[in-house]
Every structure is written in C-alpha cells, then in structure tokens.
C-alpha cells in the first residue's frame, strides 16, 4: 500500500513538472484521470500572490489522491501561467477547457482577470472557483465565489471600528482600480446611512505600486487632528502596502491613535516587512493562520510538510481554495459525474468544514457563508483575533447600500436561475447583465 502511495506521488510530481514546463498533458499517464485546471499567474506582478495559490491547489489535489481520488479516478492538475496579463487569462482559460478538457478551473486573483475569463466560461460552460475577496456586484452561473463579498469583510470591519473603537472620521484609501473603488462606494454609502457627515470622510486613490507615501500620510495626520477619533480603511493593493506601512511607522502614527484596517494585507504580504512598528493595526479576513482550531493546526502542519518549509505561512485565499475544492469534490460525488451542468446544480447547499471551526455552505447566489474575523497585527507577522462575528455571514452579491443594486438578488436554482433578478420589477435582468 505504502509503495503505491509513493508511486502516485512521484508520478504526480513528474506530471506537474511536465505540465508546468510544456503546458502539454503528460502522455504517459496511462489510466483515465479527472483533470483540474489551475489558472494562476506564475510570473509578472501578480506572481507574488498567486504562486502560493497554485501550490495550494497542487497540495489539495495531492491530498485528495492520497485519499483515493474522486469517483474512483485520480485527479490530475493542469497548470498554466497567464503571466499577470489579463487577455492572456481568457486565452489560457480557453486552452484549459477546450484543449486540456478540464472538469473545473480554480484561479484568478484580480477582478479584471476574472472579468476577462467570464465570457469564456459562459461560452464553453465550465466551472470557475474564484478564491479572493472582491467588490461584489456580480453573480454568474459558471462562477463560484469562495472569497468574501463586501458584507463579509468591509462592512463588519467598519462596524467594529465604529462600535468598539469609537471612530467618527474615516479615511478610505485605496489603489486606483475596480475593487477599491466599488468597495469604497459601498462603504461611503454605508457610512452616510449611519449618519457620518460627508466632511468626515476622505477618499484617496493612488496608482499601482505607489511608493512615495509622504504626502498622503501627512494628509491623514492632518485629517486626524480634527478632534474626532480617526481611522484609515485601506484597500491598498499588495505591493504598495509595504512602503505605506513603513511611512506610517516612520512618521510615528501609532495604531492606538489612528488605526489602519486593511482588506488586502495578509500573512503573506507581512512576510516582507518588519512588523514591530505595526502592532495593533487591523486586518479583516475570514481566516487567520493564528486561528486556534484542530482543523487549522492539521492543515498548517500538512502544508508545511508538503512545501518542506517550516516558515511557509497560510492565508485567507488559501482557505477559500480549500473550501472551494472540498465543495467541488462533494458536489461531484453527489452528482456522480464531473459534468459542469450537473455539478452546478448539485453544489448548491453543499456544506464543508472550514478551517475556523465551522461549516461553510454554498448558497444559491454562488457565494458561501463565512465567519468574519478582525485581527490585530502582531510583532511576529501573525494576526490575533480581537473580534469575530457570532455566526456565519452569507455573502451578499448585490450590495444593499448602492441605489442601483439594492433591488437585485441572485438565485441560480430552477425556476429562477438568474444572476440579477430585480425584486422591484419582478423580472430577471438589471444592472450588469453578466
């Protein structure tokens, strides 16, 4: 028995190597396999975040094969590299589905890459699991959103600051692209509905990879000296965070005075930073590596063993892939086939354990239920949970706080089968017909 385990492992490793080198399917895989596509950038600017997710998928597939595979067949990963190039995402998705005949695809990070592959998945009728927190305002039949919608991350974080920290003045700082802009629009509407005056909200956008934060940090300092408790809500993307936090620390802005709550900073991003001056700044996610549950301890131990690196960290999008992958497995077992149409129907209502000690379920709007955790950054680069929702929060695809989406709902069960059903008008179709 043990011998065969070894055999599978080496074979899999070899096949992964071959696919990642030549894009082609290994020709010597004798038995029939179920193919799973992995569509994450391994080069270019997004490689920093996405490479880990590719490793996570390989790890999950490896684990599943150790358990005997799926429907009596082995799983086989097909890795492609869309190179952080948005149009290339669509091409590579097409290649995965029509050439490699994969049964499902796990991938994408930025919203723009997801938007670019949407038409491909619709046309070729396949399944995409999207693992990253995003701005909402979308529900598509072929996509399952396992990351957080704004109400599963941004809104609870703002609530925490308002109620527990007594914040009255808000800086919404973000990188200039679709996720921060939509999130900030929702947050602004939400804050105003809670009675925050317009002059108590400052919105600021910066370009990708912005590195000179001196002026903006001073602006924040000035904005914060108006006699009201001030906080920064940051949707600053990946790389630009490091110089931002460095500047905050150097200019002596402490978390006790002006806390920063970030939605895109996880354990992975903090790994490139001396976190001692950042202690107390906040992050909002649905998972932290520091969460103390047996499921999580087990996952981290196996992950470190798989990567052979005791310093490897885990993060929220990884957990989203874990949940998404397990849901797909369960749905395929339930349907008895990997046929996308059957899986899309059977996956709704499937519930699997998440790593924070509860169960996450796939809802009819293709979003999942998750707990929301607020954590404070610690000196060792980990987060410590200081607050969490008492139960699970259902992902809300169409925000209730934006005037043109508050009447929309999504329900992909028959007979409605609609991603943007307008409750007020009583018919399918509304803003954003995707």
């Amino acid at each position, binding site marked *: 028995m043990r011998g065969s385990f070894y055999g599978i492992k080496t074979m899999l490793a070899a096949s992964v190597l071959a696919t990642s080198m030549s894009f082609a399917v290994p020709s010597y895989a004798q038995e029939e396999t179920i193919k799973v596509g992995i569509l994450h950038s391994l080069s270019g600017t997004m490689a920093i975040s996405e490479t880990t997710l590719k490793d996570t998928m390989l790890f999950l597939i490896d684990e599943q094969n150790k358990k005997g595979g799926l429907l009596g067949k082995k799983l086989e990963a097909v890795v492609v590299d869309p190179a952080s190039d948005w149009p290339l995402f669509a091409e590579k998705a097409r290649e995965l589905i029509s050439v490699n005949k994969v049964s499902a695809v796990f991938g994408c990070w930025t919203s723009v890459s997801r938007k670019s592959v949407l038409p491909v998945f619709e046309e070729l009728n396949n399944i995409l699991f999207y693992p990253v927190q995003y701005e909402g305002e979308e529900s598509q039949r072929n996509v399952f959103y396992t990351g957080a919608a704004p109400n599963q991350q941004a809104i609870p974080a703002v609530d925490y600051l308002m109620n527990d920290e007594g914040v009255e003045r808000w800086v919404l700082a973000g990188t200039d692209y679709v996720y921060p802009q939509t999130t900030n629009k929702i947050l602004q509407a939400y804050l105003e509905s809670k009675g925050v005056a317009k002059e108590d909200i400052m919105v600021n956008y910066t370009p990708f990879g912005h590195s000179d934060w001196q002026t903006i940090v*001073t602006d924040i300092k000035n904005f914060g000296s108006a*006699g009201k408790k001030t906080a920064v809500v940051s949707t600053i993307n990946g790389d630009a965070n490091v*110089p931002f936090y460095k500047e905050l620390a150097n200019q*002596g802005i402490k978390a006790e005075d002006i806390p920063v709550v970030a939605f895109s900073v996880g354990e992975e991003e903090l790994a490139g930073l001396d976190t001692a001056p950042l202690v107390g700044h906040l992050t909002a996610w649905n998972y932290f590596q520091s969460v103390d549950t047996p499921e999580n301890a087990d996952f981290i131990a196996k992950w470190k063993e798989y990567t052979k690196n005791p310093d490897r960290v885990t993060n929220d999008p990884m957990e989203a892939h874990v949940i998404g992958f397990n849901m797909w497995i369960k749905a395929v077992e339930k349907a008895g086939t990997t046929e996308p149409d059957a899986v899309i129907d059977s996956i709704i209502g499937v519930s699997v354990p998440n790593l924070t000690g509860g169960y996450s379920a796939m809802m009819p709007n293709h979003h999942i239920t998750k707990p929301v955790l607020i954590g*404070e950054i610690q000196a060792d680069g980990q987060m410590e949970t200081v607050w969490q929702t008492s139960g699970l929060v259902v992902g809300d695809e169409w925000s209730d706080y934006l005037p043109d989406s508050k009447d929309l709902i999504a329900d992909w069960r028959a007979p409605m089968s609609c991603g943007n059903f307008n409750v007020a008008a009583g018919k399918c179709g509304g803003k954003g017909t995707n």
Partner: protein
Amino acid sequence: MTFLRAIGLLILLFATSGASAQSNETALRETIGGLSSAKNFRETEEIVRSLGATGDPVVGRVLNALSDGNVSFRKSDNTVFIVSERAGRAKLFDPISGDEVGEAATTELTKVKVNNGLRRSIREVFATLTLGSPNPAVRQRAADTMFISPDPAAIEGLDAAIAKEDVASVKERMIQARAAAVLASDLPEADKLAAIEVIGARGDRSALSLLVSYQGRSEGALREAAASAAAGIESTIAVWNAAQNVWYGISLGSVLLLAAIGLAITFGVMGVINMAHGEMVMIGAYTTFVVQNIIRTSYPGLFDYSLAIALPLAFLVAGFVGLVMERGLIRFLYGRPLETLLATWGVSLVLQQLVRTIFGPTNREVGNPSWMSGSFQLGEMAITWNRLWIVVFSLAVFVLLLYIFNRTAWGLQMRAVTANRRMAASMGIRTPWVDAFTFALGSGIAGIAGVALSQVDNVSPDLGQGYIIDSFMVVVFGGVGNLWGTLVGAMSLGILNKFLEPYAGAVLGKILVLVLIILFIQKRPRGLFALKGRAVEA
C-alpha cells in the same frame, strides 16, 4: 533639634512604607493574578485601571509588558508572568520584581490578549504613574500623553507635579496638559479661557485637535476663543505644510536622482537605451537583502553597519552584471538603438525571472538600521531619518560622479570617447574598454541606488520596473549627457509632483507631470541643459 526631628520622621516614614509595601505587594499580586481570569478586554481594562489606582510605580513594569503583549499565564496554575519568547521557549519573569524565575515551553503558556483600546488605557494609566519619574524625558512623555487624553481628575496630580518641576520645557508641557484637563472639567469660564490660550500657544496638531473638538461642544465666548485659537494654529500649520511639500519634493527628487544617475551615464553619456537599468537597481536591493541575511544569522551585532557593507558589494555585483552585458551583448549593437532597446528589454525580463526563481516571487524583508528608523520633528514637519539620509546619500553620489568625470584621467577618457570616438582612438585610448567600464560604472551606480531604495520600497523582482520610466523621464527632461541636468531635472520633477499631489491626487498628479514634460520636450527637444557643439551633430 529640627535636624534630629527630620531624621526621626524619615525613619518613621521608611518603616511604615516598608510595612505597607509588603501588604501592598500581596494585594498587587492578587490584582495582577486577575489577568489570568479576565474573559474579555473590558475585564482586563478594569484590572489595569485598578493597578493604576494604586499609584505604585512598580506596576509600571507589568503594564509596559502587557502593552507589548509580553504577559502570559501558565495554564497549569494560572500564575501570571512577564515572558520573553525565543524559538518556542519562554523565559519567565516575576511581574513585580522583574527577576527571572524560570522557563517554560510557549505551549504551556496562554498570552493575555491586548487590543488598541486596552493599549490606550495602559498608556494613560502609565502616564499618571510616571509623572513623578526622576527622568525628565519620561515626565515629558507622561505630560504629552495626558495632553492627548485629558482627564479632569488628573488636575490635582498635575498641579503637584508642576510645583515640583524644575526643567522649564517639561514644566511647560505639564501646564499645557493641565490646560487640556481644565477644558474637560467643569471649572469656571475664566479658567477655561486661560486654558484655551495656553493650548493655542502650543500650536501643534494635537492642540488643534483638542480645540476643534472643544469648539464643537462649547458656546458663547468660550466657543469664539477656541475658534480663533484653532484658526491661528491652522494658519501656522498651513505654512509648515508648504515647507513640508518642498521637503517631500526634495526627498522624492533625491530618489529619482539616485534611480536616474546611473542611467545618465549609460544613456546620457554613452547613448545606450538600457531598458535593464531598473534591474540593476533591483540587483543592488537584493544584494542588500543577502548581506543583511548573512549578518542576521552570523553577526547580529553588525546589523547597523549592514548598509555600509552592502554598498561596495552592490556596486561590484551590479557593475559586474553591467560589464558582462556590455561585453556580451551591447557592444555588438552600438549605433543600432532599436535593437539595443529590444535586447536590453529582453535582458531585463530574464534578470527579473532569474531573481524570481532564486529568491521567490514574494517580497523580501530588508530591515532599516536603527539610525534610519523613525523621524524627528522640525516645527510641525516630521522629517523621517531614512528620507533624510537618502537625500544626503544621493547628493554624495552625485558629487562623487562629478569628480570622477571632471577630475580623473578615466573621466577624461570617457568624455573624449563620447565627444569623438575616432579621435580618441587615434590618441591611444582603448575605446572598447572605456565603453565597457563606463557601462559597468553606470550599472554599479544603479546597484548602490538599489541599496538606498531598499529602505523605502519593496524588495521584489519588480522593483526596477517602477523606476525605469521615471529614470528616462528625468534624464530626457534634464538634458541628455549632462549630470547637472539630471540633478536639476530630478529635483524639479520631484517638487512639481509633490506640489500637484495634494490638489490633484496622486494619480492625476502623475498624469499632469507627464503632460507637462511632453509639452516641455516639444518646446525644448534637448531638455533643460542641452549639450552644445559638435557632439550634438555627431
């Protein structure tokens, strides 16, 4: 007689304080022990407050440790310790005496959790405890904390402290803290008016913050006084903000100068369109990372010198890569700018992916040495040390290059080859070697720029890409082939950018700068300091 009585009194005092100290200590231990059973932050805060209420300075130790997250209790017997963790083991210290009392595995301990609100309360409690500290710096910090979070109950304590204080500057802070507390109290209007004046005279951001919030909850004469004091502070701060913008401009300019000055040599002097210039910067930054890594694991004491050690190494590594590039590729492409552009762009991609393969795609941590962390206050401007040193460093590099170009034989040869290659060759200058070493020099300078940029930016494989466009912009704007042009170009672009940013935002500001440069190049195609004479025609 009086002398004797005084001594007797003193003895009595010591005896009683000794006795009460003992009973105090048991009470304190009991209170501190409560930390192990606190269920939420509110309960922990109550314990912190009651510790502060004892007024005993010894609790400062445990409060400090708690604020730093270094207080844990042993799971087996709920005893609270101050801990210092290292690699899974923790040294245990007594929370009151601070003596080391043992060791435990971190798994046997549970940390007492703290959050921002709790850290704030600890800071306030700590301030009231340390107002009588023998160290003036500590007293001043205490007074400043009390100013930011005024508490009417503290007026008495502050009065006593002010009476005892003999350091003028600390006394002033205490008077200001008292004024802040007066505003929060229900004392008569005359006292409050005086307090507003004291706070207004302080004139910084925290004073402004206090006054604005007070303005919101007062009326009549007090409201007017607060409003006019706040307006006074706002106008001073506006002046400081303008000064700050100039400083930020210089600081951004110095970063641009560092990134561009190597290019001013390879592109400006030699005319090679080197798209891999940014990657030389990146290589310099990674050299710093490697140096710091070795220092961290083997010679932790040398950490503050890590940048000084990295500088020559970065110069050599990047210079060597430049030399190989010139000998292996660029020398075959002289006079063919389009091919050079494409070839060097290819090299840049290769270098990026190479670094990504060796070091991984994620950011690498490059620490700031202690002399490059934090900031100092100049009026209402916060000047960060790392930016200040980068300005100094970039000017030093500039002066050094100027010296090499104008005062050394090698510089003379370089200029001769640039001005007229065939003539220089006829004079016995080995032009291929001058080319190779000039290119290596430009690359090496880019490498040491990388050491400096590792202090303000991400060390990732994409580091260089963020600077390549800016570098070309500076060199073209300043005038190709002129070091002074690069200096003036970098500084004016930096300052222009920083003056536009507050009004137009970072995104639009950058666009505006680009538009202005395009317009400028239309008017003066050769940049600010155009080379004149035959070299231009060649």
